[in-house]
C-alpha cells in the first residue's frame, strides 16, 4: 500500500475537512476573533488531521502489505487467511472474518466434490473388475466351442477388454492416491506380456516385431507399463501404412543415469503440426479424423500414467515414414544395486 494511493482513496475526507475548515475560518473572521487565535486553531486542526491520517495509514498499511506479500509467495492462495493475524481495525476485521467464512465454505464444497469423485472412481474400478468376469466367461466359451465364429468373438471380446482397461487406467491416472508399486521390472518380460496379450491382433495385421537390448531392468509398475505398451501397439496397428508391412521395433538404451525405451513403427506417422499436441486430452488430429476412429484418450492416459510413475515420455515422427515413442526411466542407484 503506497501513501499516494491512500491519499487518493481518502480524497472525500480531505474535501469535507477542507470545506469545514473554510467555513470555520469564515465564521471565526465574521465574529472578529483575533488573527493569532485563528492561526493557533488552524495549526491544531491541521496537526490533528495529519496525525490522524498517519496513524490510520500505518495501521492499515501493516495489514494490507502483509496480505499482498504473503499472497504473492503462497502457492495455494486460498490458504491466505491461515497466514494472517486478525487486524486491529474494524474494516480489516470484517474483511478477515468474511475471508475465513468464505474459505470454510469453499473447503466444504471442495470436500464434497472430492468425496463424490472418489466414490465415482471407486465405483468405476469395481465395475471394471465386475465386467471382466462376463468377458472372461465369454472368452472361455468362445475358446471351448471353437467354430468359425470363435475367433471373431474373441476379437470383439479383446476390443471390449481393451476399452475397459482404458477406463480403468484413466480412473487410476486421475487418482491422487498411490495405487502402484515401483519395483524392478524386466523390460523383456513386460514387452513379451504386452505382445502376447495383443498377439492375435498383431498377427491379423501381419505385423512383425523386432526387439533389441531389452535385457535390462527398470524401476516401474509392471502392470502399468504393460498397459502403456499395449496402447502403443494398438496405435501402431490402427495407423499402419497401407503401402507396406507394419514393422514394430522395440529397443532399449542403457545410459548411466537412465534407461530409454524406444517404440518405433513404420506407420503413417504424425503431421508436424499435430506432434506437440498428441498427448493432450481428446486430441485426435489429422490421423484421428481421416484414418481410424480415435478417442484421443490413449496417449493422454499414457502421459498421465508416466507422470505419476515419474517417467518422461516423448514422441518423434515423420509423416509417411515412422512414429517413435520414447519413455525415459530414471535410474535409482539405491534400488538397483
Amino acid at each position: 500500500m503506497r501513501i499516494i494511493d491512500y491519499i487518493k482513496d481518502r480524497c472525500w475526507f480531505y474535501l469535507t475537512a477542507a470545506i469545514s475548515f473554510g467555513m470555520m475560518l469564515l465564521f471565526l473572521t465574521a465574529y472578529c476573533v483575533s488573527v493569532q487565535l485563528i492561526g493557533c486553531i488552524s495549526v491544531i486542526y491541521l496537526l490533528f488531521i495529519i496525525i490522524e491520517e498517519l496513524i490510520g495509514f500505518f495501521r492499515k498499511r501493516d495489514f494490507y502489505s502483509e496480505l499482498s506479500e504473503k499472497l504473492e509467495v503462497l502457492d495455494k492462495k486460498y490458504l491466505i487467511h491461515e497466514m494472517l493475524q486478525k487486524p486491529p481495525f474494524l474494516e480489516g476485521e470484517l474483511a478477515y472474518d468474511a475471508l475465513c467464512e468464505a474459505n470454510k465454505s469453499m473447503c466444504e464444497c471442495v470436500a464434497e466434490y472430492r468425496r463424490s469423485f472418489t466414490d465415482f472412481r471407486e465405483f468405476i474400478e469395481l465395475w471394471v473388475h465386475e465386467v471382466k468376469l462376463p468377458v472372461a466367461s465369454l472368452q472361455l466359451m468362445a475358446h471351448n466351442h471353437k467354430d468359425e465364429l470363435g475367433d471373431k468373438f474373441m476379437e470383439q471380446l479383446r476390443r471390449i477388454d481393451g476399452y475397459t482397461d482404458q477406463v480403468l487406467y484413466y480412473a487410476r491416472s486421475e487418482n491422487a492416491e498411490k495405487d502402484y508399486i515401483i519395483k524392478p521390472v524386466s523390460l523383456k518380460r513386460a514387452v513379451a506380456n504386452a505382445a502376447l496379450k495383443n498377439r492375435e491382433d498383431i498377427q491379423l495385421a501381419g505385423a512383425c516385431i523386432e526387439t533389441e537390448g531389452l535385457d535390462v531392468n527398470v524401476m516401474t509398475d509392471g502392470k502399468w507399463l504393460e498397459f502403456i505398451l499395449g496402447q502403443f501397439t494398438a496405435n501402431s496397428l490402427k495407423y499402419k501404412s497401407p503401402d507396406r508391412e507394419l514393422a514394430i521395433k522395440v529397443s532399449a538404451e542403457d545410459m548411466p543415469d537412465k534407461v530409454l525405451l524406444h517404440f518405433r513403427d513404420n506407420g503413417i506417422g504424425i503431421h508436424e503440426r499435430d506432434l506437440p499436441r498428441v498427448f493432450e486430452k481428446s486430441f485426435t488430429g489429422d490421423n484421428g479424423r481421416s484414418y481410424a476412429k480415435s478417442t484421443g484418450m490413449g496417449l493422454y492416459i499414457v502421459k498421465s500414467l508416466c507422470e505419476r510413475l515419474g517417467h518422461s515420455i516423448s514422441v518423434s515422427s515423420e509423416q509417411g515414414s515412422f512414429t517413435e515413442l520414447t519413455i525415459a526411466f530414471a535410474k535409482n542407484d539405491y534400488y538397483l544395486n
Partner: protein
Amino acid sequence: MSKIYIVEDDRSIREELAELLRNSGYETDCLTDFSDSAAQVLAARADLILMDINIPNLNGEQLLKEIRRETDTPVIMVTSRTSETDEVLSMSYGADDYITKPYNPTILLLRISAVLKRSAGTASVQTYSGLQVNDAKGTLSDGSREMTLTKNEMIIFRFMLDRKGMIVTRDELMTALWDNDEFVNDNALTVNISRLRSKLAELDCGDAIETRKKQGYILK
C-alpha cells in the same frame, strides 16, 4: 493325469474353465461350497490349485495363507483385479503364478503346464523314442549323431513333447513362442516346423510330427 482344483465363485467361469481343462487332458474338481473352503481344498489333494481372489468368506489371499500352512501344492491366482499390489501380495503369500482375467485361454494353459512342470522338477534331459533331448545344449542325439536345434525349433519340440500324443494347435505353438520373446509370424512358424521335421528325419524320425488338417500337429 494331473488334477486341477478350481476355486472360483462365478458359476459360468467355473464350468467353462473346467471344460477347458478337461479338453486339455486334465482332471478337474471344483469348490462349490465356500463355507469351509480351506479344508475342502486340502481334502481334494490336487496337483495344482487355480484360485480366484474375490471369493466368499475367506478371500483368496487368506485361503492361500491357510493352504500354505499345510501343503506346497502349486497355486495359480486368477483374478480380475489388475494391480501390481495384489500380485506382489499373492506372491508373498506363496502363490506360484498370478494371472489376470480375462485371460487368453491358451496363455492360461501354458502357465498351468509351466507351473506343473516346475513343481514336478522335470530333468533337463528327456528322451523321445530313443532320442536324447538336451535343453541346455539345445540338441537332439541318438547316441552316435547329434543335431542342433535353433531356439525356436527347440521351443516347438519341447512344447509338443510335453503334449505327446495330443493335438497341438498352431495357436498354442505361437503362444509358446511369443511367451519366449520369439515374435514370429505365421509363415515363420511353418518354416520352423518343416525345418524341425527335416532335422528329425535325419535322425530317422521323419514321421514323428503329423499334420492334422485345420486342427494342428501331433507328435506321435
